[in-house]
């Protein structure tokens, strides 16, 4: 598939642990087209998070090839990979991973600081992104003053800061109750409709049903890959707030 956004061929990742090699990802070949919403599922230890780290250029494969948006990433230096992360990828984590000592606005600005956006543009764009996730009234607050759902919405706003083509979410609802989780998933669905490709790691089947394609991992291999039958549509309070 020449026009795939993500294309892996024979991707492997193994770690040295306790005198032996532990293979976390074994020979994964997968293609994801632009605009897809993929849920990666599997029990813990199945290699799905390692695979996610490889997709996010946080880790390098032991073997195999990875093409992202037409770029062959094998020979990229650490700084070049950082630039890829900065320009093309947004991360959303289970633990939110906001910086606690600075404001919501500064957190959303952070990717733009490293991306080289001028100061003035940063403020305006970060404010617009916070508004988009419906939290304009929280802009001067510290992340610790926010609820879990609010923090995750800010984390999503941060992930969108440099207008990425790929959003990677690692158990984004793992710390949230089901109602809040549905709100967050609604935002993902809305973003996906606007054209962003989303890859989401989860072990909850309920969460995976919001996606349009499900990929199952077991022992580092892809064991199943099929479209989601009638994806759930999340009703989003935040969209109405933002409107």
């Amino acid at each position, binding site marked *: 598939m020449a026009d795939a956004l993500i294309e892996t061929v024979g991707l492997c990742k193994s770690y040295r642990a306790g005198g032996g090699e532990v293979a976390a990802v074994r020979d994964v070949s997968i293609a994801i087209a632009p605009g897809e919403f993929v849920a990666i599922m599997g029990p813990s230890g199945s290699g799905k998070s390692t695979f996610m780290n490889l997709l996010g250029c946080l880790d390098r494969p032991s073997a195999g090839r990875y093409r992202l948006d037409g770029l062959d990433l094998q020979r990229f230096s650490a700084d070049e990979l*950082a630039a890829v992360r900065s320009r093309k990828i947004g991360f959303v984590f289970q633990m939110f991973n906001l*910086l606690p000592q600075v404001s919501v606005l500064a957190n959303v600005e952070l990717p733009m600081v*490293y991306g080289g956006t001028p100061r003035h543009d940063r403020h305006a764009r970060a404010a617009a992104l916070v508004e988009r996730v419906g939290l304009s009234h929280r802009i001067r607050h510290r992340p610790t003053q926010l609820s879990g759902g609010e923090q995750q919405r800010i984390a999503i706003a941060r992930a969108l800061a440099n207008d990425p083509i790929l959003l990677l979410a690692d158990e984004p609802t793992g710390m949230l109750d089901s109602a809040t989780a549905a709100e967050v998933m609604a935002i993902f669905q809305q973003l996906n409709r606007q054209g962003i490709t989303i890859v989401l790691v989860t072990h909850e089947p309920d969460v995976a049903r919001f996606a349009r394609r499900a990929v199952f991992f077991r022992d580092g291999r892809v064991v199943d890959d099929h479209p989601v039958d009638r994806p759930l549509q999340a009703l989003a309070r935040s969209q109405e707030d933002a409107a």
Partner: protein
Amino acid sequence: MSTLDAVIGALATLRANPLRSLLTMLGIIIGVAAVMAVVAVASGARALVVGKIGNLGSNLLVISSGTITAGGLKLTTGSAMTLSEEDARALRRDIAAVEYVVPIVRGVVRLVHDDRNWSTALVGVGSDYLAAEDWSLASGRGFSASEMQSAAKVALLGQTAARRLFGDLDPVGAVVRIERVPFTVIGLLSSKGQIKGGDDQDDIIVTPLVTAKTRVLGVSVAAARAVGNIVVKVRDDRDVAAAAQRVHTVLRRQHRLGPQADDDFVVKNLAELVEVRQSAYRALTLLLGALAAVSLVVGGIGVMNIMLVSVTERTREIGIRVAVGARRRDILRQVLVESVTLALAGGVVGLLLGAATSAAIAHFAGWPTVISPDGMVLAVGCSAAVGLLFGLYPAARAAALDPIEALRYA
């Protein structure tokens, strides 16, 4: 990431933990304050001493009679009266750069006034002595030309000698006996102060040269034209060394010394003396400053310690930054900017504290202190350098973190 962003980020981080930041800075603060205060006190001492020596006159050459060798022993300077009034005249005539040439004789005499007596230095001087020495009169007048020639029994009193004999009264017009010979005091000299070693320049009585020789010191007829010293004042500071050379040439000719003969006189250049003292104090300042700088290094180790703790604590934060696009050098720069900011802030506070300490020393101990701009620049520069140096290792550690491990860090 611009440096400005890095500085703003560093300030936010330091503000987030104010007590720790302050305690970390304390090492630098004390180090810089110590350097500042020590250098200020040492510079003050130097300025004091150099100033006192400078009172002697920085463009003066003092020529003394040289040594003679008696029975294989070399006797002390001035043991032979080799200089004469003719020498003084020749110097005045042959060297264009000189402003004044003043022959003088010295002795120690007993002064008596009413029921008080005092032992002091007598200086018999040729014309222009006060002008050559840059010495002014507190009251009264100087010697007239006729008094100089006629061996008039008139004298000028130094402040210390005057106080011993007259207390707080004005001695001008009074009669003082020098070795039983009555002299009229016609002037009171202004104060010149002490020089190092305790010599009091104000413990003195000055008479015309001829008077001192004939009426007090009783110089023998054979040495009637001899003088103890010749003071030469050079018109321009820059000509002092050249003038000293000319003095040598002229005096060797006057004394008819052959090419192999040793000088029978000594030319002392006071500017050189000042230079020597100054460099000695400069060395002292450096030494004390270096000792105080050790505490700055200790402060730097404190900064490194805290930066290492801080980097470990913020492992997760570093992981987040890497995930959103920070390069290794961005992380490196962030930690370096933080440690330099910390050290620099400590340096500035230390500077103020050091200035306050020197002011307090000056006020309470009465010890003069000089705060030089050089010292301030040096102190702040040193603290920034300390921050940079001791921030390198923590910064390298932070930049080398594996982002995945870092993000997993609890």
